[in-house]
């Protein structure tokens, strides 16, 4: 088996996987607990401990059987995924079809540590549309090492909204590789609340003119949680916009990481890149590491990036309290306001409601 990357690799400088390498993970057990499924009228794929459960899933016209593709890349996580993958979704939406929404649910639970490596493939034909609502939940110690290969053809739009609410003892590494063609769009948002250690890594290649990538995320972490959001956007064609807004709220001894790389090829004139990473530290022991990286080989581009790390503004807290709002509510209002910019692009109502509910339960636990 390919070895896990270590912190000696620049891309893994801030995320230490020794907690994973020092744990002995067995094969996933049969899942005993009943899954907690959202009440939404969309076709759904329900994975229990990494295996698609036919009884709990519903038919989706554009689902194909699991068919792992040979791994072409050299990234350790993708290689580990390829060597161990047993299941995953395989969606192909034909040209011109609006396939609506699908739910991708992963539920995990077991008495002893186990690992699973979903290998998903999503392909949208020209002008096609799809919204994937992904929810990852679980209990106990496990490691989900998921991989998505995404291909969005000319003029197609894929929305990918993820709620990562894994067990706080679990590990979640999700690698996403998206190829976005001319006038196509990949709109991504991940809300990270769970896992002891997690990383979402997205590589988005904008290969045709005016292709668009939105890679937004919010993470709210407490205790000793570690959350890493890493992106690489490659502008390989002219006139492509890319947008990233990443918000981290860190309590306790939590540690957040954002690494955002934007590569602009020589051909990619009129690139319009925007990247903003902001962190709110709610405790003196919380830590945020931010690494923006711009590599620009074209001469007529607009690329802006910014990073801020701060605490809640006590003036604002006092203003709200002076109007009768209790302190805990005042802080919650301000944290929610801080997240707004990242959540705003999620215009899909059902997804938005899922995120709002998840945030509600997060406040309750603090």
């Amino acid at each position, binding site marked *: 088996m390919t070895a896990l990357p270590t912190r000696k690799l620049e891309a893994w400088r801030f995320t230490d996987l020794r907690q994973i390498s020092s744990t002995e993970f067995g094969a996933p057990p049969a899942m005993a607990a009943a899954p907690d499924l959202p009440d939404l009228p969309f076709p759904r794929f329900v994975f229990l401990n990494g295996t698609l459960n036919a009884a709990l899933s519903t038919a989706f016209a554009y689902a194909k059987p699991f068919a792992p593709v040979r791994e072409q890349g050299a990234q350790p996580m993708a290689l580990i995924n390829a060597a161990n993958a047993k299941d995953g979704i395989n969606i192909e939406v034909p040209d011109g079809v609006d396939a609506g929404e699908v739910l991708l649910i992963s539920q995990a639970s077991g008495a002893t540590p186990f690992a699973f490596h979903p290998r998903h493939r999503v392909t949208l034909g020209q002008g096609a549309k799809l919204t994937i609502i992904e929810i990852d939940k679980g209990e106990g110690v496990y490691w989900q090492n998921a991989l998505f290969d995404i291909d969005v053809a000319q003029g197609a739009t894929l929305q990918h909204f993820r709620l990562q609410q894994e067990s706080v003892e679990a590990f979640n590494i999700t690698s996403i590789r998206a190829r976005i063609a001319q006038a196509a769009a990949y709109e991504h948002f991940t809300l990270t609340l769970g896992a002891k250690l997690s990383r979402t890594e997205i590589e988005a290649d904008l290969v045709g003119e005016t292709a668009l990538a939105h890679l937004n995320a919010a993470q709210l972490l407490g205790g000793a949680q570690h959350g890493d959001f890493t992106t690489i956007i490659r502008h390989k064609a002219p006139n492509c916009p890319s947008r990233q807004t990443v918000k981290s709220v860190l309590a306790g001894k939590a540690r957040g990481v954002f690494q955002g790389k934007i590569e602009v090829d020589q051909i990619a004139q009129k690139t319009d890149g925007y990247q903003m990473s902001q962190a709110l530290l709610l405790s003196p022991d919380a830590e945020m590491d931010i690494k923006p990286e711009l590599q620009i080989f074209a001469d007529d581009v607009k690329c802006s990036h910014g990073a801020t790390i701060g605490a809640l503004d006590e003036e604002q807290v006092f203003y709200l*309290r002076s109007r*009768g709002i209790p302190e805990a509510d005042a802080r919650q209002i301000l944290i929610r306001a801080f997240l707004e910019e990242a959540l705003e692009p999620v215009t899909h109502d059902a997804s938005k409601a899922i995120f709002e509910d998840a945030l509600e339960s997060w406040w309750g636990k603090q």
Partner: protein
Amino acid sequence: MLEIKNLHARIGDAEILKGVTLTIPDGEIHAIMGPNGAGKSTLSYVLSGRDGYEVTEGEAIYNGQNILEMEPEERAAAGLFLAFQYPVELPGVGNANFLRTALNAIRRSRGEEELDAVAFLKQARAAVKQLAMKEDFLKRNVNVGFSGGEKKRNEMLQMALLKPGLAILDETDSGLDIDALKIVAEGVNALRSEKFSALVITHYQRLLDHIVPDVVHVLANGKIVRSGNADLAKELEASGYVGLEAA
């Protein structure tokens, strides 16, 4: 009724209030004037419970309770309202949502039923109209991108909806043109009743042309050095604070 008795307060090592004593009966509007650095804003912050001020002596009894021992939100629930000299911007917080949350928090603590969105909007729209504000005021983020005058009007809007028993206006007139000044004055005058009192802190007499106070106090060097009727404000406008500071 608000009774401030021998109030001493400091910021760090600096004693700012050095024994303020003052009583505002229900239904009355009192003005506090005074030179820069007299302790006017400190008095308003100590009364509303802002962090960073240490009360070393004295008390402030409002309707039988020593408010200095209460949290800021409890003071608001008890009927106190501070109109800020520099209203705070809250990016990402919608004005309507903010106002409704505040109003319902206060209603809850008073044992009143919360207002639903429809009932609230009805009240809020009426108040917006009364204050000659634009409809989109409620949709914007709290004070974000507001002009100085709009921020002060937003303070008056909050006051109109929260209906306090005692309002403290901390130099609400600073930076206002005459039209905005009149709106602030109308906001206060509209609440005038036997159950409402106000403490109007101001540097200039001109606000008091529009909000006619029952009593004018002069605060200098951390103490009330003179009190009188509305004519005192006019006298100060003519003669300045020189001479009073030594008192």
